[in-house]
């Protein structure tokens, strides 16, 4: 391996390390088994590798938009016959990396100081996990399967997580909370 190839690999490895969780989360919506998801994850990153020159020039949020959209296409085509999947991959190769918005999921705004993002970050990891899985389309039984717990336990965890979210959100917007923060979220009601 030449120095240049090693640099390329290192750069791509950082890219994969930064985004693999998001990609796997997006693919978890697939009805395929774990090995299908693993295969699709590799497919997403193969497409990314082929366009890495373009993608590496984007910021992290734009990279995620592209990865989320690509994963979404692959999930939608999973289970179709091989020829259809091949055509989808070819179409994805041809799409510009900064495509126009094609779905609500592509609309990404930096959450930064956004209240919801801030509240989410205050929950514990398990609570964030079930809320995100729910948002990605998993129901109680599906979350249960993914986490190795019963559907009932999954639903209970989801309820607890929502309650914790509401409490944290209300605390964030209470008059006792820092003036700057409450002003910055004035008018934001979920």
């Amino acid at each position, binding site marked *: 391996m030449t120095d240049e190839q090693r640099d390329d*690999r290192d750069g*791509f*490895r950082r890219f*994969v*390390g930064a985004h*693999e*969780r*998001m990609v*796997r*989360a*997006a693919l*978890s919506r697939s009805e395929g088994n774990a090995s299908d998801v693993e295969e699709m*994850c*590799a497919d997403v*990153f*193969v497409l990314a*590798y*082929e366009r890495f020159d373009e993608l590496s020039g984007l910021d*992290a*949020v734009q990279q*995620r*938009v592209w*990865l*989320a959209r690509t994963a979404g296409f692959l999930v939608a085509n999973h289970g179709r016959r091989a020829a259809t999947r091949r055509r989808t991959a070819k179409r994805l190769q041809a799409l510009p990396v900064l495509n126009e918005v094609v779905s*609500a*999921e592509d*609309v*990404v*705004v*930096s*959450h930064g100081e956004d209240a*919801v*993002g801030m509240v*989410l970050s205050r929950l514990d*990891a398990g609570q*964030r*996990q079930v*809320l*995100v*899985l*729910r*948002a*990605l389309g998993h*129901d*109680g039984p599906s979350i249960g399967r993914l986490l190795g717990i019963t559907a009932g336990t999954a*639903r209970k965890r*989801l*309820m607890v997580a*929502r309650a914790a*979210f*509401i409490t944290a*959100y*209300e605390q964030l917007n209470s008059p006792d909370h820092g003036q700057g923060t409450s002003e910055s979220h004035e008018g934001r*009601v*979920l």
Partner: protein
Amino acid sequence: MSDVDDVNGNDVDPISSWISQHPEVWDNAVTPLDDDRIDALVDRVIGRAQARQRRYGAQRRRKVIAVGAVTGMLVVGGAVGAAALLRGQPSQPIAGIACQDGIGDDAVVVAIDPTDDPIGGCEAAWRAGRFNEDRDLPSEPPPFVACVGSGGAVQVHPLEFGTCEELGLATADPALDDDNRSVAELNDRIVAEVNSSMPCLSATDAAAIAERVLDDSGLSGWRVEIRTGSAAASCAKAAVVADRKVIEVTKFP
């Protein structure tokens, strides 16, 4: 947040809606891969991308398309033929014709039924667009040559990839000789009288009919065999195995 309590089991709630629009928080759904697994993923991805580049770089891929009744018995030859096959008659006369758009592992192969005019058959397949699924080939076929491929079947490919001699293959005779024609006819009769019989024949009956058909063919050195474990089968089919000069009866399914 007043409607958050209503969301148990509902499709959309404000929290989910926000999260679904923010891939930057999706990481929370899964645990991270460890370094070794990330390295393995990266190696796999780069290996696959490079292999794909090589394949698409040539804009070709190996594909075998069967046309008509020809079955999967066709053995497609490579670029180098076996010296022992340097005769103009195929040792697999019933395997069909391998029409190829090139030579080697990345050639597209269209299999057509056995015919006395292999080049004409492949030209017709070319004109019918059988080779043209993913590529923009000229509609008129190139000059073809017909060889006996290393698998023993007739192989037809564009002359620009080399003559049969240059590829170490025998030039195929213009037509099947009497023996091979008899084998092709034998195969046709076995298909019609044994394999298409309704209801399905027992192994014993299938073998008896195969013996009669074999006698009628006038071929010498051939025999009928019932495969081990198939003798008591209530339903059996027969296959003509030309290179072993055997009609083999096998239980079905």
